[in-house]
């Protein structure tokens, strides 16, 4: 029996390792390409470890295109979008779940229906509205668009988390003399942490990766976000300058990874806390 158990465990770890390799390989390949010379990229038998490693692709990516400034723009826009989305979605989600009226049902229905509209329908009207408001070619205009885009889904996501918190917990705290604000701060907020983390991750990554609105709304080169700047390494018929593109893309994934690495701990902690108390 012990042998079977060991075998099963080994098979589980092997499967997990294979899955990790499957997930990680594109990133490893990107890393490899980013250190290769142009000639090495088109070898008939490519190697994972570059034969003549070079930093030239990173130098080109940073000097030819202003990647650092684009990264800063992306960081500002994505962080602000995530913060604003959560700030607006949190009270709305709580109200929708805890204060049930006919209106809240209609609102949730509308939020769902709004998800059915394809993005393409919104492009030109949004562009016109922002232009009339003088918000094209501004980061703030782009942040507003991203918040508008993320808010319905964030609201839907958060209300699911709020619904998962037993009302009895809040009532018990009230019976023990806690004020409404204390209930929200000491009981609801800790249990909602995973929901807030998941929502902000969603809003951040959506904004960080978004390309088309950033391309259309921001005319000045100094306002360009990372996806727009990286697209400049791609030319006609899918031909790309692979080296600088790989170097830039690799750097572009780092903030998302860091953001996720920091927040996923809170995500796990929150889930655990909820499970014990629930």
């Amino acid at each position, binding site marked *: 029996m012990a042998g079977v158990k060991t075998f099963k465990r080994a098979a589980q770890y092997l499967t997990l390792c294979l899955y990790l390799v499957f997930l990680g390989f594109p990133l490893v390949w990107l890393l490899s390409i980013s250190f290769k010379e142009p000639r090495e990229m088109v070898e008939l038998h490519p190697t994972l470890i570059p034969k003549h490693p070079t930093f030239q692709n990173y130098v080109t990516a940073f000097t030819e295109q202003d990647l650092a400034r684009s990264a800063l723009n992306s960081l500002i826009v994505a962080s602000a979008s995530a913060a604003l989305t959560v700030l607006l979605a949190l009270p709305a989600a709580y109200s929708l779940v805890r204060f049930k009226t006919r209106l809240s049902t209609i609102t949730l229905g509308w939020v769902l229906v709004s998800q059915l509209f394809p993005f393409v329908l919104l492009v030109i009207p949004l562009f016109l509205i922002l232009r009339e408001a003088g918000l094209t070619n501004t980061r703030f205009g782009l942040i507003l668009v991203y918040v508008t885009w993320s808010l319905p889904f964030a609201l839907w996501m958060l209300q699911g988390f709020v619904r998962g918190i037993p009302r009895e917990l809040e009532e018990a705290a009230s019976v023990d003399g806690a004020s409404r604000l204390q209930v929200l701060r000491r009981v609801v907020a800790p249990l909602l942490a995973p929901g807030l983390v998941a929502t902000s991750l969603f809003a951040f990554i959506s904004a960080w990766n978004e390309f088309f609105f950033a391309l259309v709304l921001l005319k000045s080169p100094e306002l360009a976000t990372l996806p727009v700047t990286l697209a*400049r390494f791609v030319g006609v018929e899918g031909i790309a300058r692979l080296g600088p593109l790989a170097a830039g893309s690799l750097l572009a994934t780092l903030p998302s990874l860091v953001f996720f690495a920091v927040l996923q701990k809170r995500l796990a902690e929150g889930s655990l806390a909820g499970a014990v108390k629930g």
Partner: protein
Amino acid sequence: MERSPVNINRRSLLALPGLVASAALLAACGDDDKPETTGPVKLRFLSLAWQKESLAANKQIVDDWNKANPDIQIEYVQGDWNSVHDQLLTSFEGGDAADIIHYESAALGEFAKQGYLADLGSLLPADFKAEISDKVWQTVTVDGKVVGVPFLLESQVVLANKKLLDAAGITVPAANAPWTWDEFAANAKKLTKPGQYGVAWALKSPTNRVMNLALNYDGAFFYEEGGKWTVKVGDAEKAVPQRIHDMIYVDKSGSPEALAFGGTDPLPGFFGGKYAMLPGSIYLRQQMVEQAPKDFEWVTLPALKGTSQNQAANPQTISISADSKGKAQAMKFIANFLNATNLAKLAHGDWLVPTGKAAGAQLVQSTQGKQGWDVAVASADTLVQAPFQRAAGYSEWKSKIATPALQQYFANKISIDQLAKTLEEGGKQVLK
């Protein structure tokens, strides 16, 4: 669960005429009349240059202009080829398009018909106009209006491994003595041996290439009768696809695996000696210079000849937005941007063919015709406007009918007659 508002689909965007019309109305309501400015202006130039040398040349020309012309300042904005169509459509509808726009002739018709592009006919300096051939001007003329200045051309040539040609005793043809398709097929056969194919036809997206090369035998595919377009596939249209097919399946000199390749995918095999010849765009020469192993010797063979060397011309263009307040100033900039010296620099940066005759001559002189520049510049004379470029509905026919049918034919799953029938029937469905 993540939703990302990226990758707008061009066709779906275009499939929204109602929305576009209402948006245009909205835009029109908010727009004032835009009189031409005579004082100092700042104009936005949307450029699609992306290659290192080309980008540097573009920026240098703009910088020099800005220093010399304080009253006409140009703001250089770099766009990208893959999203420029959607970007332009949105910004035209929103009334916020760049003043000076870099794009390609095939895409201008749609924008011109909606009135987004200025007619440059009266603005063009006469000497500038004379530099470019009438055949090329035709590609940017829509309903009698000149809606762009053509400046860079692309042609299809053949790149070859010089050492393998020498080993097989094959002489490189001169720029003015191209191989016929028969000679090409015979030489591809000579170059084929175990582990080595004579040719790699990268045909992942076969339609444009077949349409272009079919002109070698006057294969027009699209015929206009009484204002209505029809697709006809006769012997002239069948000649090129059949020859390519036979090289792969009859002569076995063409690599079957290469059929699934895109433009630059065969390069590792080409550099590794697996393929001796590589038909492709003239800009592939850049990859030769930048990526070929140091001891790799390559040559550019002239475009192949059927009854002619004709190919379709789809030049890159510079247009002026109809909404621009400084059209005359924009044209002054364009005339400078595309003068012979600058045009030669831009063509060199992109490894493409300049439309201007003087620029072509300068380029051949400065490069001494090396790296295939003699062949490249000579190929400009063979480029003509093709019927498919004027046919409304070509784009839909290409994606829905022609590409899948040609892929099946080149995979040897259907016969040439079945291909012809599919293309013609598809034409009837799409070109209503």
